[in-house]
């Protein structure tokens, strides 16, 4: 069942992105930034975790999960060290997405040649 909901929820988040592209005529960078901020705010009010429990990868694969895990890392450290933890804990959880993108970006640049 989780496969079905991953498909539906992930698809719906992409539809929201498509509506921002087509109806509000935003650039991809604007759309993605807004979605990341939305993810952070949703986690702030405690709605993103239930969504992950409900839809699994449908909620962790879209870019909104970046905002969610940034807030999560910050909050984990904040519980231990107070306000200063907000700054130091920021990348604790998200690092996977960003570091994977950077590592595979460099590897890709070594292996592949630009086309056209």
């Amino acid at each position, binding site marked *: 069942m*989780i*496969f079905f909901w*991953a*498909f*539906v929820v*992930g*698809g719906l*988040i*992409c*539809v929201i*992105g*498509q*509506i921002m*592209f*087509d*109806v509000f005529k935003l650039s*991809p*960078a*604007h*759309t*993605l*930034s807004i*979605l*990341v*901020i939305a993810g*952070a705010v949703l986690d*702030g009010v405690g709605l993103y975790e239930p969504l*992950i429990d409900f*839809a*699994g*990868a*449908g909620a*962790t*694969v*879209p*870019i909104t*999960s*970046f905002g969610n895990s*940034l807030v999560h890392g910050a*909050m984990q450290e*904040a519980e231990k060290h*107070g*306000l200063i933890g*907000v700054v130091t804990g*920021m990348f604790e959880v998200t690092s*996977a*997405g*960003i570091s*994977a*993108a*950077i590592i*595979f*970006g460099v*590897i*890709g*640049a070594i*292996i*592949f*040649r630009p*086309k056209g």
Partner: protein
Amino acid sequence: MGDKKKQKLQPNQQRYQAFQQKREIKRPIFKNCIKAFLIGGLICLIGQLISTFYIYQFNFTEKTAGNPTVATLIFITMLLTGFGIYDRIAQFAGAGSAVPVTGFGNAVISSAIEYRSEGFILGVGSNMLKLAGPVIVYGVFSAFIVAIIKTILTQWGGF
């Protein structure tokens, strides 16, 4: 374009705006949304398959399986981007391939490959995050604001 902005324009600029609006090709919004839904859903479904695999093979929990899944998806994206397949998917799917982390990965990897001719430090290193930069910057900044508010409310406000 807002009404206020319109009033500042010259009369023939206004006429041009009206003309341009009439001629602009209507985007097939509904069709695009269906495509985005199908491809976006499919990418998340693949993500769910990968994380189920990690949960059963490597003892990750539902919560921790997110990270290796994202890394694996970005690895697949590297191959698809390098062979030029991701561009074709993106042309068909629009936001369906841009919104999942694979779109973020594609933005980083394609600019890394593109700027390689300018050298690895000044080309790849400094241009790689050109498209993905705003996402990281505003993600971090908004997370900072949200976490500060939440910390103040929970630790000092006694909620």
